[in-house]
């Protein structure tokens, strides 16, 4: 089995585990203070970082 195939298998085992990360209680406040209110998609962007 090649390294690439092995890596794909390993990456596959991590599918959606990423969503489980705990959210910091003040995350929205911190991001809002740094970048202003989020866009309609919930993403915080700074000035000049248009969608």
């Amino acid at each position, binding site marked *: 089995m090649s390294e*690439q*195939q092995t*890596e*794909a298998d*390993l*990456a*596959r085992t*991590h*599918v*959606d*585990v*990423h*969503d*489980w*990360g*705990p959210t*910091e209680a*003040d*995350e929205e406040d*911190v*991001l809002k203070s*740094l*970048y202003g209110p989020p*866009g309609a*998609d*919930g*993403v*915080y*962007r*700074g000035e000049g*970082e248009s*969608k």
Partner: protein
Amino acid sequence: MTAKAMLAAARKDLGLTGRPNRITKDYAKRNGAEFLAVAWCQMSITWWARQSGNEDAVLPRGDRAYTVWSAEDGEALGRWHAGTVANIKKYAQPGAVVYFDWQYTDRIAAIDHVGLVEQVLPDGRVQTIEGNSGDAVKRRVRSADVIAGFWNPDYEEDDMPSAKDIADAVYERFTGTVTGDVWAAREKILDVGQKIDPKTALRQIWAYTKDGYARDREILARLAAQDATIKALADALAARDSNLDADSLLDRIRAELENVSIRLDVGK
């Protein structure tokens, strides 16, 4: 390239969502179609590194889609720091690659997710940009509890010229044409308008250095001769006048010379 360029590449993808997307497609193009729809957080780091010309710093062993292997790459370089508040405050920098374990360990083998540090917050947390955070590229805030560790890629400094810029400047110096404002032209060592070639330039540097040593030796020889003349003069005076203390006279002359500044024009 720089951490600044790496972060600029990440910011361009804020809001990117779903899979396959341009990040997974790019990775799959080089590594196989099976990567089109798998977890893409580490592929995002790979993409941003490639987009910003930071492959050498961020991908020392090439493309990575698996977080654990990317962390091991940083560890192999001796750049790995465990995810403690103290380490984050002391070592984490914008552009650091930061790895998370949702089971709160600092074990590389347990890593679940990865992001890019955009800012280190004063309380020891980090603000990140992460690919595949809820299947999107988002800014997040993360604490040491969930940070397994991080490493700072060996980016070039933003205010430093690149190695290529330095090499180009050196090449220009050794292959360009002499202009009137350079020291060597003012000193009449090179002619204005003279085309420099590397061999000639190096020979001229060597010749001038050699000439400098010759001038130094000439100065030292003149000073030694001057000292001998003064001593002979003192001895002659002492021979004519038995009351004269030659040693005392020499000491006085030397003391006076200590306070004299002399400009030596040698070789003109």
